[in-house]
C-alpha cells in the first residue's frame, strides 16, 4: 500500500511512476490514463498448457470458465491482406495452448499441481508473452536459440511445439539460469532434455555472434528492460532505484547489442523476434531501427521486418494492441484484459 509506514521518501516504484507519467503521457497520449490504471491494478495471467503432463486438465480448466485463446480465435472476419514481408506466414503452431479467463473476468488460476511423474500441468505467465513465441513460428526440425531465456516461460512455450531440432537456451545470470533449469525439470520429461536436444548456457549473450554465427533458423531475443509492471509495483530489485540508474540508462545499448548478436546468430533466411515487456519506444522500435541499420552497415546483413498484423488481428479479442505502431506490435494493458505490456518485432534475414 502506498502510505505504509515504512515507505521511504522516494521509493523506486514512485520514481518509476513519475518517469512513466512524463514519458508515456506523451508517447501514448489519451491512452495513458487507461494503461496507467491497468498497470497499477492486478494483472491477469494465462496458463500455458503443458503438453508433457499426463493430467487431464483440459476439462478442468474449461470447467473453471477459461479457454485456450490460441485455438479459439474468431475466424469469420476477413484478416487484413498479407502485407510485404508476410509471404512466409504459416499456420500457428497447433501445439501451443494458453488458457485465459474471459474479458472482464477477474478469476485467478490455482497453482499448478504435479502429475504422477511430478510434472506440472501448466505454467502461469502473462498470456501476451506467448505472442512472441507464436510470432517466431517454429517449424519441425528447426534449430532455435533463446538468447535471454530465464526464468523460462517462453522456452516452455517453444518446447510445446515438440518438433524442434535443437534448442539453445541461454541467460547470463547464474541464479536465473538455475531457476530456468528447475522450471525445465518441473515441466519437461528427462528424455526431452538430453544433450542432443537442448543446451543450457550461462553466457553473456552480447558475444553470441563471436561463438556461433549464421546457425539458427529461429532466434528469440527477449531482452532485459524496465519491466514496467514490476517497476511500478515492487520496490525490491527495482531498476528505478537510485543505485541502478546507470544500468537503466544503459538498457537500450545492451538491448541493441543483444539483438545484433541474435541477428548474427541466425542463418540467412532465418527469423528473429525481438521482445520486451516495456512500453518505452526507446527500448522497442528505436532499438530495432538501430539494429537494422547496424546489421546492414557493419555486418553486411540485410533484413526485412515481417508484418505481424495477421497475428494481432487473430487475437484482437483477447488483447489490446497499440494502434499505429510504425515498427512491431505492442500489447497494452487494459483493465478488462490486463495483459502486457509486451512489445515484439519480427525480422527475417535476407542475407
Amino acid at each position, binding site marked *: *500500500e502506498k*502510505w*505504509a*509506514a515504512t515507505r521511504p521518501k522516494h521509493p523506486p516504484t514512485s520514481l518509476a511512476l513519475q518517469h512513466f*507519467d512524463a514519458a508515456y*503521457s506523451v508517447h501514448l497520449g*489519451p491512452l*495513458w*490514463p*487507461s494503461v*496507467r*490504471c491497468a498497470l*497499477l*491494478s*492486478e494483472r491477469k495471467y494465462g496458463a500455458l498448457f503443458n503438453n508433457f503432463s499426463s493430467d487431464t486438465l483440459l476439462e478442468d480448466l474449461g470447467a473453471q470458465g477459461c479457454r485456450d485463446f490460441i485455438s479459439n480465435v474468431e475466424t469469420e472476419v476477413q484478416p487484413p491482406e498479407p502485407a510485404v514481408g508476410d509471404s512466409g506466414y504459416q499456420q500457428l503452431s497447433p501445439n501451443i495452448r494458453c488458457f485465459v479467463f474471459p474479458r*472482464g473476468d*477477474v478469476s485467478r488460476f490455482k497453482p499448478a499441481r504435479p502429475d504422477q511423474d511430478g510434472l506440472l500441468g501448466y505454467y502461469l505467465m502473462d498470456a501476451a508473452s506467448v505472442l512472441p513465441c507464436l510470432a517466431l513460428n517454429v517449424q519441425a526440425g528447426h534449430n532455435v536459440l533463446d538468447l535471454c531465456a530465464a526464468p523460462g516461460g517462453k522456452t516452455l512455450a517453444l518446447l510445446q511445439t515438440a518438433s524442434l531440432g535443437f534448442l539453445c537456451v541461454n541467460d547470463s545470470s547464474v541464479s536465473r539460469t538455475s531457476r530456468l533449469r528447475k522450471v525445465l525439470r518441473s515441466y519437461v520429461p528427462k528424455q526431452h532434455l538430453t544433450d542432443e536436444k537442448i543446451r543450457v548456457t550461462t553466457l553473456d549473450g552480447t558475444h553470441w555472434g563471436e561463438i556461433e554465427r549464421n546457425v539458427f533458423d529461429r532466434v528469440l531475443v527477449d531482452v532485459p528492460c524496465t519491466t514496467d509492471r514490476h517497476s511500478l509495483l515492487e520496490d525490491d530489485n527495482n531498476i528505478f532505484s537510485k543505485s541502478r540508474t546507470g544500468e537503466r540508462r544503459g538498457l537500450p545499448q545492451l538491448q541493441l547489442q543483444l539483438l545484433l548478436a541474435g541477428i548474427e546468430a541466425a542463418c540467412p533466411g532465418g527469423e528473429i523476434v525481438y521482445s520486451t515487456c516495456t512500453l518505452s519506444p526507446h527500448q522497442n522500435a528505436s532499438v530495432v531501427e538501430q539494429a537494422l541499420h547496424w546489421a546492414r552497415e557493419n555486418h553486411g546483413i540485410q533484413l526485412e521486418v515481417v508484418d505481424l498484423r495477421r497475428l494481432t488481428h487473430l487475437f484482437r479479442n483477447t488483447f489490446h494492441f497499440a494502434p499505429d505502431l510504425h515498427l512491431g506490435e505492442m500489447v497494452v494493458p*487494459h*483493465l*478488462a484484459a490486463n495483459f502486457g505490456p509486451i512489445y515484439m518485432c519480427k525480422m527475417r534475414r535476407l542475407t
Partner: protein
Amino acid sequence: SSQSELALSSVVEMGFTDSQAEQICALSRFRGSNPKHALSTLTALFVLGLNPASVLKVIEKCPELYTVKEAQLQQRITNLRKLGLVEGSLQRVVVHYPQILTVPAKRIRTAVTFLREKCLFTMHQVTGILRDSPAAVLENTNHLEYKFQYVYFRMGVKQAEMVKSKLFRFSLDEVRNRHSFLERRGLYQTPDKNGQTLVINPRLDRVLHSDQDAFLKLASASAEEYDVFKRLVEREWRQEEHQWARWEKWIQEEGKEKIT
C-alpha cells in the same frame, strides 16, 4: 381490535383521513409497539409541525418509533435542537431520516464529541453533518474515522469542504472506489506538505456527486473499465487485512498533528 392496537377513531380524530388512519393503525401491529407510546409519538410529530401525510411517511419508514416513550422522544428532540437543528432543518431531518429519533441522546452526543475532537469539525460543521447526513451518527466510529482520515490525508480535503460536499452520505467504499480510480488514472494526487499537486484535483463534490456517466467522463474511462476496477479493488482491500493497523501506525507516526 385488540388491546395492543391503536384505536382507529382516535387516529382519525388527530386529522388523518380514513385510509391514512388505517395504515397508521396497521403499522402499530409492529412488534413491541405500545398504543400509549404510539399515540404520544404521533402527537409529538404533529407538535413538530408535520402534516398527516408526512407523519404517515415517517411511521412507514420507521415503525420502531411506536416503541419510544414520550419522555425519551422529547429528550431526543430537545437534544437535536441543542445541537443546532433549528426549526425547518429538524423537521427535514426527521422526515428524511426518522431513525434519528430512535437513537439515544447519549449516543448522538458521543458521535458529536467524536466528530469535534477526533476530526476537529467545528460545532457549526457538525450541525451541518447532522442536517445533511444524519445516518452518520449511527455509523461505527471506526468506520467514520477511517473515512474521515482517508479523505483528509489521502485526498487532502479539509473539513469545510467535506461538509459542503456532504461526504458522510457516502460509504467508504463509494469514496474509495471513485478516488482510487481517478488516482490510478493519474487524475488525482495526494497534495504534498505544502498542499501542492502536479495535477489539478477535481473537487470532492464533483468526485462524489456526479452520476455514473459524468464520473466516467471525469475519469475518461469506459463503464467496463470501472466495473472491472471495482471488483479488483474490492479484492485488494479485502486482502489488506493489516491495512487498518498499518494505517493507524502511519497516522501516529507522521500524520496526527497535521489535522488542523
